[in-house]
């Protein structure tokens, strides 16, 4: 099961990178010209030919791609067209910041969505539930960057409690993490609520009550555990939007992460950077999916045992 998923994902990365590679070659906006323009050198045919040779652009496409793949495997992702630094260096520089923000956002997500989801399910159709559901509804309608702006406005500008941008102290960490967490929360709250309500109505929960197990214990050890599974699945599926959210928030708060980097790369048409980014992110996503699958197996023993024949 994992094997086929892995291979599927890897194929996808390479197909995507190859297509990127291909399209790069056939679209307008010649990279050679843009390099020359950046270097503020006048564009002449000889200079063009020279650079083409330098960058190996005059060789057959497949050969170029092949060379590129070999480089990739050795962790050489080429050089940024704009800054001339190695792409891998640029990305690695920024990776920790993005990971930190991701962790922060996920923590906030946890801290918000689990209590709200639980409260919502326990007090179904009473006022805590309504508040929770309206929060989820509005939260799902609000653009994350605007939310960040609002928070920034109040907490940085007006109240001056927290710094507005950049990375440095823990205080810098707070607003971006919160924004990310709140942006992601609504869908998990809704999901958790639905799932928990269904579980709490199941016969085995009633049986646990009949055995005399305390309601608190039932909630935390029996019900909650069962409802984690769809949450994890959801998480695996929403890695893409996590990435999008990260980028947007990084730009907003001038957080020096990969999102900021890649957007710059796109606006500047820095192809090696874009390609390198796709590969790295693709790889990270494969890794995360693997972790999610493993986690899934741990939590759901039925998968583990493959629903064995009866003892």
């Amino acid at each position, binding site marked *: 099961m994992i094997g086929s998923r892995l291979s599927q994902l890897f194929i996808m990365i390479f197909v995507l990178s190859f297509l990127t590679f291909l399209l790069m070659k056939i679209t307008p906006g010649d990279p050679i010209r843009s390099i020359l323009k950046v270097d503020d050198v006048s564009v002449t045919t000889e200079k063009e030919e020279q650079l083409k040779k330098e960058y190996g652009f005059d060789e057959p496409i497949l050969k170029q791609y092949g060379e590129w793949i070999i480089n990739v495997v050795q962790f050489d992702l080429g050089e940024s067209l704009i800054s001339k630094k190695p792409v891998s260096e640029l990305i690695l520089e920024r990776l920790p910041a993005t990971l930190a923000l991701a962790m922060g956002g996920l923590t906030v997500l946890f801290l918000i969505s689990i209590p709200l989801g639980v409260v919502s399910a326990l007090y179904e159709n009473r006022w805590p539930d309504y508040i929770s559901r309206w929060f989820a509804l509005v939260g799902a309608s609000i653009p994350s960057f605007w939310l960040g702006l609002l928070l920034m406005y109040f907490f940085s500008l007006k109240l001056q409690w927290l710094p507005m941008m950049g990375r440095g102290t823990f205080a810098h960490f707070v607003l971006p993490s919160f924004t990310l967490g709140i942006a992601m929360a609504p869908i998990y709250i809704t999901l958790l609520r639905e799932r928990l309500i269904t579980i709490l109505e199941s016969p085995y929960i009633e049986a646990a009550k009949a055995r005399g197990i*305390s309601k608190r214990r039932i909630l935390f050890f029996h019900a909650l555990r069962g409802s984690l599974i769809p949450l994890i699945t959801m998480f695996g599926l929403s890695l893409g939007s996590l990435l999008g959210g990260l980028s947007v928030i990084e730009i907003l708060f001038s957080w020096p992460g990969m999102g900021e980097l890649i957007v710059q790369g796109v606006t500047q048409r820095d192809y090696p950077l874009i390609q390198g980014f796709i590969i790295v992110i693709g790889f990270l996503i494969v890794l995360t999916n693997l972790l999610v699958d493993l986690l899934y197996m741990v939590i759901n023993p039925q998968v583990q045992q493959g629903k064995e024949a009866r003892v």
Partner: protein
Amino acid sequence: MKESLLSIQNLSIKTKDDQILLKEINLELNRGEMVALIGESGSGKSITARTVQGLLASNMMVIGHVFYQDMNLLALDKSNHHQLLGSEIGSIFQDYRGSFTPYIKVGKQMVETIRSHYSIGKKEARELSLHVLEEIHLDSKQIFHSYPFQLSGGQVQRVAIGLALALRPKLLICDEITTALDVMTGEAVLNAIEKVRKETGCAVLFITHDLVQAYKRADHIYVMQNGRIVEEGSPEQIRCEHQHPYTKKLCSCLLSLPGENHLQTYQGAQSI
């Protein structure tokens, strides 16, 4: 001397939409007795059980009295009522798939149950669990480390019975526990119940639609139909001197039991 354990008096239950679920139920259960509650699905027997267990949905209108020893269960608030569950009033359910939480190992759930009632350590609880499993003739080590979905229906029921053995409740409610099992396994399960009764002296409220089982094992039988008790008596009385037409229908399905002289003809295939 007979000592009243459970006394249900004039219990009536209506739903919010005025649908009558139970009408004037009267039922007596003494210490150590096995009382059978027979009826088809929808006759109200499970609802009666749920009322005793305090697991009724909250939007029901309940009148009457349900005395457990000398406590009126209906007058208790939910948490006090729930405190009785497990240690005083034990339950075994029909849906064996729904008796234990599917993704937690059986042993862990047994230990959890035991420790919810006795303040003993994990080790001792484990010992006790293994012990009762052995008593019910199950392979204790294997069962202890299995998940509920890895066990057969009969095994799950017997684990639940084992817990009853460990907790020693005074009243054991068995709600259609053999319905989903084949005859042989069902017999094994019922024998295990007998064993628990002998060892702990508990009373059993045995809910079933199978008259044969009731006849064989119960001290007293109540017959329910449409939320009412239509007949009650000792097994012989029910068998031979029944008055109500419904009881007649039920009995007509009984094949003659071994050791009997007179044969009962069964009129038409009336499935219960």
